[in-house]
């Protein structure tokens, strides 16, 4: 029986939704091929929570729990995961294409003398081989790829696949792995997270973005209020970031982050092609703009022609009302 080995990413002791997405997808593939899904959880103090991975579809959980593994370290995590891969003789290795996943997966691949297909938005099995679909040229073209290497390795774009608790309440065995040498030439000195609860655009299901039309950093509060009412992250166009109104980590676009939320609301932004490249994967796009000829107005699923300073606060009110 073949094994699909999944890296279940956690942060600060909490498993990420992106990790659940990969486990769920592995489960789906396993149903087709009759494979075993093994999730690898690496961290510190995560033993109690690891079980939830079973609910998302893991048949078994390999646990590496140690103080030294609290923060992601490329060398130690790679060594742990490669050990797991060799021990389980996994045929397929899956990661999430988060910052950590994108750093870890290539190292594992090289260590196992093979390549991976990264940032996939579609994945399936055909004749025992992984067939994936991944974007090229900032999404202008998609490549349908057959993975010939062994093991077959792929990383999945966050927020594209569903995280499904297909085995709710199921209890699954958690096996503690023998740990390799956890010394590393890289030392994590500090981890600074901005604003505690602030939701990162790359992980959000709903994003409200402000552009040049917001006219200044002081006016972004109306964008933030709409975002809060929806439980959404606040994004920014390059214009707003270059003007110094918002930090670069909020930038969505070709030179910022590529996102694919369920709902993307654009306020006071024209939808230039470079921005579009960063959010065209959104399931539903809403645009609010004074200019009916702005490029985004033709591409958005729903649009309102109007002044964002009038429309957005009204939206916030309506949403608050309906949420009560």
């Amino acid at each position, binding site marked *: 029986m073949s094994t699909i080995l999944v890296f279940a990413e956690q942060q600060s002791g909490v498993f990420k939704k992106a990790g659940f997405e990969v486990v769920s997808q592995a489960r789906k593939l396993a149903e087709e091929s009759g494979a075993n899904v093994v999730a690898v959880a690496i961290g510190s103090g995560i033993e109690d929570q690891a079980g939830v991975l079973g609910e998302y579809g893991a048949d078994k959980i390999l646990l590496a729990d140690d103080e030294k593994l609290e923060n992601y370290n490329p060398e130690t995590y790679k060594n742990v995961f490669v050990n797991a891969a060799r021990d389980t003789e996994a045929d397929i290795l899956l990661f999430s294409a988060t*910052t950590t996943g994108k750093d870890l997966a290539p190292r594992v691949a*090289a260590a196992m003398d093979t390549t991976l297909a990264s940032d996939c938005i579609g994945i399936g099995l055909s004749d025992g081989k992984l067939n994936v679909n991944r974007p090229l040229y900032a999404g202008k073209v998609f490549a*349908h790829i057959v*993975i010939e290497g062994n093991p077959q390795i792929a990383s999945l774009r966050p927020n594209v696949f569903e995280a499904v608790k297909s085995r709710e309440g199921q209890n699954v065995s958690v096996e503690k792995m023998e740990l390799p040498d956890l010394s590393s*030439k*890289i030392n994590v000195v500090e*981890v600074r997270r901005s604003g505690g609860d602030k939701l990162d655009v790359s992980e959000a299901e709903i994003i409200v973005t402000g552009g040049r039309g917001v006219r200044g950093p002081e006016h972004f509060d109306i964008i933030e209020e709409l975002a809060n009412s929806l439980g959404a992250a606040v994004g920014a166009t390059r214009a707003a970031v270059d003007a110094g109104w918002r930090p670069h980590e909020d930038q969505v676009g070709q030179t910022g982050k590529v996102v694919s939320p369920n*709902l993307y609301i654009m306020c006071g932004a024209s939808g230039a092609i470079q921005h579009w490249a960063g959010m065209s994967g959104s399931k539903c796009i809403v645009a609010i703009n004074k200019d009916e000829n702005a490029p985004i107005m033709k591409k958005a699923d729903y649009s309102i022609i109007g002044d964002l300073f009038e429309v957005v606060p009204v*939206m916030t009110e309506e949403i608050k009302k*309906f949420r009560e």
Partner: protein
Amino acid sequence: MKIAVCLKQVPDTEANIKIASDQKTIDESAIKFIVNPYDEYAIEEALKLKESQGAEAVIAISLGPDRAKDALRTAVAMGVDDVVLLKTSANSNDALSTAKILAAKIKELGADMILLGKEAIDDGNMQVGPMLSELLNIPCITVVTKLEVNGNSVKAEREIEGGVEVLETTMPCIITCQKGLNEPRFPSIRGVMMAKKKQILEETVELEDAKLVVSSLTYPQARSEGKVVGEGAEAVSELIRLLREEAKVI
């Protein structure tokens, strides 16, 4: 200190990408090529390190077809000392193959600081940097937005979701560069003119058989026509209704 920069020549971000008739590659005929923007941060950081720390040389390496010489000339115009073209017949599809060839060259050069962009904007793989780390058995820090070098020790800030990580390591090491690390200098006109005359060292290389096989390329699905819900604040209730009932996203 010997600094190596790995750079890739890629289609311009504005290029109109057309799928070639073989359905597996793109039509390069009407495309303008540029230095991968993230590699520009690498070149700039290398030059800055040379200026502040003193270095024996900054050498730029590129794996690619003959046209990649133009990208190397841009690096010369910016101020790198030497360039090498590892010539292949086309762009490589396979990050491991690329990394192996680059690793061999880097080893030959004896570089202590290796800089490259975090990803190439054509394939968006983000793999070569970390793979080089495995192959050369030296540390690699990715997505770096700030770099401090003091003698042999290296301190880097790395961009992660919702924050920043600060890591330390020692040379030799690999750094992949993210936007915000620096402002790449504009290649001076003088530099451009001198670069035109520069002799570029070429070595023909063979890529391994690709482990990722492209079965076809397709264009993204066109989105269906959107609708204008209305004008001004009065349209808001209708919009919210549609988002709830039709799109079901809230």
